[in-house]
């Protein structure tokens, strides 16, 4: 279980991680193999998985209805393994723009999309997104017109949220794979929208 060529001083926290892991292995609570496997499984969780869901919803209206009714079941329908995830998918429309935050910590649909980015966990995002979402979105380069309602979802409990962005114009004859290619992680958090080209 060696670190890959990090020429950095071994910190107190790394000492704690090694020590905790060795103790847990000695006690039979975890195994080294398990830790490696789970780390790899989490690494395999990437935003592409969410993009696949979005693309399917864009091409298949019946799937989209099912997705909005029960995000978990709809992901499982596509063969995506999402243990214990209670997923709520919220739809962007010409009248409504959704954005997700967890002010209390950093709740995020990680078993679907992977580990959240640093900025999602930052003090600034967590404190300002509920209070001045339009300013925060502008910092991300997204200007939402005053005629569009912004719905900010603070994930405080057991549900995890994902935004279903609007399908951009100019993609009418695209296939699912091509559509999935323009669905970014940021568009599923609600700080961006998918762009053509």
């Amino acid at each position, binding site marked *: *279980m060696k*670190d*890959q060529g*990090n020429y950095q001083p*071994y*910190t107190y*926290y*790394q*000492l*704690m*991680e*090694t*020590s*905790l*892991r*060795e*103790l*847990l292995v000695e*006690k039979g*609570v*975890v195994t080294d193999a*398990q*830790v*490696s496997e*789970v*780390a790899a*499984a*989490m*690494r395999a969780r990437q935003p592409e998985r969410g993009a696949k869901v979005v693309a399917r919803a864009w091409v298949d209206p019946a799937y989209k209805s099912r997705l909005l009714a029960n995000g978990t079941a709809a992901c499982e329908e596509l063969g995506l393994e999402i*243990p*214990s995830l209670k997923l709520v998918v919220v739809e962007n429309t010409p009248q409504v723009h959704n954005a997700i935050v967890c*002010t*209390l*910590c*950093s709740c995020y649909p990680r*078993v679907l999309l992977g*580990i959240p*980015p*640093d*900025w999602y*966990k*930052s*003090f*600034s*995002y*967590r*404190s*300002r997104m*509920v*209070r001045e979402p339009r300013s*925060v979105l502008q*910092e*991300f380069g997204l200007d939402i017109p005053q005629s569009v309602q912004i719905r900010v979802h*603070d994930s405080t409990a057991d549900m995890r949220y994902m935004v279903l962005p609007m399908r951009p114009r100019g993609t009418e004859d695209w296939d699912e794979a091509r559509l999935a290619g323009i669905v970014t992680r940021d568009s599923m958090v609600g700080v961006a929208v998918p762009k053509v080209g």
Partner: protein
Amino acid sequence: MIERSHHDMGGQPAGKVEPTEHDYADWERRVDAMAVILFGVFTGKRRITVDEHRKNIEALPPEAYDKLTYYEKWISALTQTLIQRGIITTEELGRKMEEVARRKK
């Protein structure tokens, strides 16, 4: 300072959101993996709850909460939770940390 817990930051004044990201180091991924295993997410055997983990992150002193990186907070909180649960003891941890530190010299 007690009425509103430091971590409960929704609506507090703050500066610009810096869109930083970083590729996680191996030790950070291992912290994440250990937590996920202990929560029983993939194995179904839950040894600790996400709620205890959050409680222990929230219990970090405000300066530590602000200055530690995400996984530095996680390893600290995870260790506290395991001590509270009696899965490890402070003494065992101290002895192991001394042993590992000697090895790393």
